[in-house]
């Protein structure tokens, strides 16, 4: 993660990035279900007699899922550059010149990725393998240097 050798810092393609996105989606869903389970337990603790499973509000749930996803992606990208999916596939999000993404850029990129995930497909046709979000926020997704 120190020196930037051109052969090491190759931009990642659609397959690895897609798989990483799927892993991240699973992680976000796991976080959501953990939150839901926690909510159920709290309700059970406070009113054990009048307990019923909370009904899912579709709008609230969707908004919550989006919020969790944005928070998760922003935190991961700004702290280490890698989400769980990116670690699995050996990827890292970096700035155009700096090895880290600034919090603001990370937050905006996360919002765009969550709201417009289809922008990832631009990777396939772009010569530098950039997604639409990468083009807008001047970020890159590279194969992280492997520990040999």
């Amino acid at each position, binding site marked *: 993660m120190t020196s930037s050798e051109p052969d090491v810092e190759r931009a990642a*393609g*659609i397959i690895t990035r897609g798989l990483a996105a799927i892993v991240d989606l699973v992680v976000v869903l796991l976080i959501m279900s953990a939150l839901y389970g926690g909510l159920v337990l709290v309700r059970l603790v406070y009113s054990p007699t009048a307990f019923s499973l909370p009904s899912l509000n579709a709008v609230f749930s969707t908004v919550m899922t989006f919020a969790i996803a944005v928070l998760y992606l922003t935190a991961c990208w700004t702290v280490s550059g890698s989400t769980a999916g990116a670690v699995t*596939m050996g990827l890292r999000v970096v700035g155009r010149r700096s090895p880290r993404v600034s919090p603001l850029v990370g937050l905006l990129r996360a919002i765009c990725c969550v709201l417009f995930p289809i922008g990832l497909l631009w990777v396939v046709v772009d010569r530098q393998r950039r997604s639409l979000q990468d083009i807008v926020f001047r970020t890159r997704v590279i194969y992280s240097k492997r520990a040999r």
Partner: protein
Amino acid sequence: MGTEVDLLKHPVVAAAVGTAAIAVGAAEAAYRVAEKVPVFGPLMRRGVVGLSERGNQWVTQSADQFKALVAAVAVGLVDLVLDEMDLNALVRERVDIDALAADLDIDAVINRVDLIALADKVIEGVDLPAIIRESTNSMTAEVMTDVRTQGERADDAVAGIVNRMLGRDRDNR
């Protein structure tokens, strides 16, 4: 053996033995006669008894000393000899260790060993959790590396197909 028998049967030897026997018999008879002499007899008997007692005492004492002396000399001698010899080489040369080992009753030895306790000791000495952790770690790392490499290859394959479809030069990236 044969010479001994011949020697015993030799007439000179027989004659000498006969003479000695006669002399002993005569001395015995003379002693008996002397014993019976009124004043001289008891005195002589007492003297003889005292002499024999002294003799016995001397024999026992000196025998002990002699034994001790012989033992000390023998020990010193054996030590000297052992110092001079390379016992390992000697055993290697003279003893058929393989034959000895073949005759060993190993089952009896094993029966005397508390194998479970021994195994427990061995397992205690081996850090099994660390080994398991290490092997799982390396296995996970291998799988991860494999997944990443395959992903990278798949990326390149897709990029190649797209480049061909769009009629791009592959190197111009």
